[in-house]
């Protein structure tokens, strides 16, 4: 690239220069080169189908040049676009070479105009979509779930995403291992649940959940705290599954459970 290509940028009016500088200061605000090009094209104030791609390419190259002059680091894709636009510009300016097999400058320019028009159109419909009445904001579904004390049949569901996340979890478990602290005084909810599943069969009458803590855990305050929390969470799970009932007479009163009759 020779300097005379940027005579154009030197001849900018003060106002245009300020605008260009504002663009550069804002470079973080652009979502990539196409976004920047679309923004530049707005200064042409024409239908995107009749846009002057040559003019746009010059603007873009001027922008990149200014950014360089101001020592602003531009992401690689901005520079790739600059290189491509410089190539396009030369194609548009030079008479076509009849021996050249590749697409003509006009074809490439038309494609760029199409890309800009498509991006603008997507922006436009995205805005129209978000302007629609939305569930939970403008219109509402039934607020109160129906009483579900009737026959319950549980069907389990999982999405492909759950499956992928599950697999990702087990596959990264080993690598993440060093970050996990092994703590002896922790009872997981899974463990509590496993434990309770075996025991609730015998719980005919209301029993304090404290009695479900693993043997000996109630002696150490740390262990007791963890085991109580896990047992309580596990109890809620079992209530949800319709296996047991839970009650608490008063605030801070013992929490009691019993097998669902």
């Amino acid at each position: 690239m020779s300097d005379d290509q940027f005579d154009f940028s030197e001849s900018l009016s003060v106002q245009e220069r300020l605008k260009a500088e504002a663009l550069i200061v804002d470079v973080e605000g652009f979502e990539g080169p196409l976004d920047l090009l679309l923004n530049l094209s707005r200064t042409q104030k024409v239908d995107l189908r009749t846009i002057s791609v040559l003019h746009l390419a010059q603007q873009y190259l001027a922008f990149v040049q200014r950014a360089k002059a101001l020592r602003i680091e531009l992401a690689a894709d901005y520079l790739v676009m600059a290189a491509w636009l410089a190539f396009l510009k030369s194609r548009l300016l030079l008479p076509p070479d009849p021996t050249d097999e590749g697409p003509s400058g006009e074809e490439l320019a038309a494609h760029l105009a199409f890309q800009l028009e498509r991006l603008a159109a997507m922006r436009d419909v995205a805005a129209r979509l978000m302007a629609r009445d939305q569930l939970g904001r403008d219109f509402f579904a039934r607020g109160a779930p129906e009483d579900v004390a009737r026959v319950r049949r549980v069907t389990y569901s999982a999405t492909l995403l759950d499956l992928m996340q599950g697999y990702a979890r087990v596959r990264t478990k080993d690598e993440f291992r060093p970050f996990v602290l092994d703590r002896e005084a922790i009872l997981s909810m899974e463990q509590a649940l496993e434990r309770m599943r075996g025991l609730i069969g015998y719980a005919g009458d209301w029993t304090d959940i404290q009695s479900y803590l693993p043997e000996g855990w109630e002696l150490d305050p740390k262990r007791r705290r963890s085991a109580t929390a896990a047992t309580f969470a596990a109890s809620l799970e079992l209530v949800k599954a319709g296996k047991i009932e839970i009650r608490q007479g008063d605030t801070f009163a013992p929490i009691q459970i019993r097998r669902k009759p």
Partner: protein
Amino acid sequence: MAESYDDKEQSLFDAPPFAEQERMVEAVLFAATEPVSVAGLNARMPHGCNAKTALEMLVKRYEGRGVRVVRVGDGYAMRTAPDLGHLMQRETTEMRKLSRAAIETLAIIAYHQPTTRAEIEEIRGVSVSRGTIDQLLEMEWIRFGRRRMTPGRPVTYVVTPQFLDHFGLESARDLPGLRELRAAGLLDARPLPGLEGSSDGAEVENDAEQDDLFEDDA
């Protein structure tokens, strides 16, 4: 509504009178928070019922009311009238503010579905951050579609019934401006001149799939 009961005497046939069928559809749709399909309604109603007719009566009955019966994808659901949203501020769930990138990605998936990550990036001219797709998946507004039968068999993304429900769309064909965009050729996969060879196959197949998706419920 006394006339609802006029024809309540049981006929020799099983099917309950229409007014009764309408009540049933009303109760089922009311109780369900998710849309219910006509097939789903028929499966719950007594033998011989015609949920479709009952549903049409019900839709009419709720016209202009504070609650409406709306179509969402394959199903029907009861939803409050949008003009009364201001009364419901207490029910409004704080909606996560979507980033501009997420909104655009969502729109591109909706209008170009099924579409691949590479295509989204092509249209936006910038790479799609991993968090963006993840967020839309988690919100259950998009899901994985079939794999594209092109080299690498990339996964595609499509929008979900939850998406349609959220934006009050009957089907993906009702996306605002879809027809104009299509007429203007802005939904065509148009490869960069000189690269036709590699992506032509994908384009053809893509169009066929897209037609399927948008004209499914015609």
